């Protein structure tokens, strides 16, 4: 079923512990090329540890992992050429402007014209108007977008996103989701970690649930749903969620605000 050429990320028997605390135990999964894979788990489930291992930043105690066919332990340099890592907190340089951040990464990735790369990404992530302001003045959503933009320089075939929307407001979260979808539609393999069920449901082709350092379930959304008892039909009033209300109210322009009020 899984021919080796289609597998982008292969994880086999990965284990890691800190002292007596076992963080990851015998973790196994494959991520196919060009798909979005969500690692779902609560805080402390071991998601970040796993991502750091796959990004060649941390050595596992046992097991093997490869990215694009390169072993993360023995071929770390080739792995780093194939990936980008967006950590849990926006890893941007606050003292530089958005444009300078992008240019720096483009230079470090040995792009031919760093300035053009930066300009293109500023436009793509709607950061043009803030391009020459210091990042310390950016909002959380803007930082995250810049962070993502920095990750895309050099078109890495594999993108790791560690809790890309934690701490973002709903609007910014939608923007990040849009960016992730674009990434995958351009052919990148995306592995994202999240603690939001909805995020995994919205974005992922396949989902693995990491709990207490183990993958306790994995598959497509439909497969996971089959793990539950069959659905019962129940009559429930469909109330708008607070999030839907928030988005509807904040999306209206000031001029139309009144007419969008209660329609009685």
């Amino acid at each position, binding site marked *: 079923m899984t021919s080796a050429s289609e597998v982008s990320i292969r994880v086999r028997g990965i284990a890691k512990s800190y002292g007596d605390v076992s963080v990851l135990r015998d973790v196994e999964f494959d991520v196919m090329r060009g798909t979005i894979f969500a690692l779902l788990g609560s805080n402390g489930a071991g998601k970040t540890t796993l991502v750091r291992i796959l990004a060649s930043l941390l050595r596992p105690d046992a097991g093997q992992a490869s990215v694009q066919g390169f072993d993360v332990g023995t071929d770390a340099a080739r792995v780093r*050429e194939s990936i980008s890592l967006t*950590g849990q907190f926006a890893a941007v340089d606050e003292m530089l402007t958005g444009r300078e951040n992008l240019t720096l990464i483009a230079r470090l990735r040995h792009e031919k014209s760093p300035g053009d790369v930066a300009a293109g990404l500023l436009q793509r992530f709607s950061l043009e108007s803030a391009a020459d302001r210091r990042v310390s003045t950016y909002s959380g959503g803007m930082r995250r977008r810049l962070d993502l933009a920095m990750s895309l320089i050099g078109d890495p075939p594999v993108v790791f996103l560690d809790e890309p929307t934690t701490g973002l407001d709903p609007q910014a979260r939608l923007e990040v989701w849009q960016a992730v979808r674009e990434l995958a539609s351009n052919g990148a393999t995306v592995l994202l970690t999240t603690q939001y069920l909805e995020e995994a449901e919205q974005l992922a082709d396949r989902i693995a649930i990491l709990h207490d350092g183990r993958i306790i379930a994995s598959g497509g959304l439909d497969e996971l749903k089959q793990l539950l008892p069959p659905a019962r039909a129940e009559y429930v009033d469909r109330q708008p969620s607070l999030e839907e209300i928030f988005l509807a109210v904040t999306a209206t322009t000031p001029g139309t605000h009144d007419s969008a009020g209660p329609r009685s």
Partner: protein
Amino acid sequence: MSAHLLSDTAHLTGRSLRHIVRSPDTIITTAVMPLAIMLMFVFVFGGAIGESRVEGPYVNYLLPGILLITVASAISYTALRLFNDLQSGIFERFLSMPIARPAVLWAHVLTSLIANLVSVAVVILVSLLLGFRSGANVWEWFGVAGILALFTLALTWLAVIPGLLAKSPDGAGAFAYPLIFLPFLSSAFVPTATMPGPLRAFAEHQPVTSIVDAIRALFAGQPAGSEIWVAMAWCVGILLTALLAALLVYRRRTR
């Protein structure tokens, strides 16, 4: 990988130099503290210590020690910048990219070297206004620059260790205080002959005294003799020890 070491280091050094230029407070504190000490000693204590104890203008006697204090106070910012990079996650971002790994540390070290060059130059300019005069020729000036560069490199690699290990920004910067204090227990401000026994023994055998004496001799255009080699040995010794320890810590932090 090593093919890009130079260009990667250059880009990253440019980045952290930009940090310094954009946070004028760090420039001011690094230059102002040693300048304040220099002014205080020249004008407040200088009269009392001055002519009776040392030959020539007191500022001539004082300057080498002030230069070491300048370097010692500036390197705490190296620790702080490194700490901030680790905290903000940008360090991890760099390490996950296909760049030459030593470049990430060397950029901070070079930044420290360049920043110290500037603040040392500022302190020397002010000392000229206060009446500092040197009989040193070009080669002796080069000698002073070389000793100061070695001293800066040694202390910078020392600063890398708390920068990598600290748990808070205060912790990252705090290690510099004893270093700033060390010149006071040396021949930097008064001849060691005026000190009581045990203190004198300490002062005469700690690195600052030999470095200060070597720079002082070079400034005066006198043969520095063995002092220069003792000073160099201290600098190189501290440099190598700190470098090894820093790389060990770096390895443990990054893999």
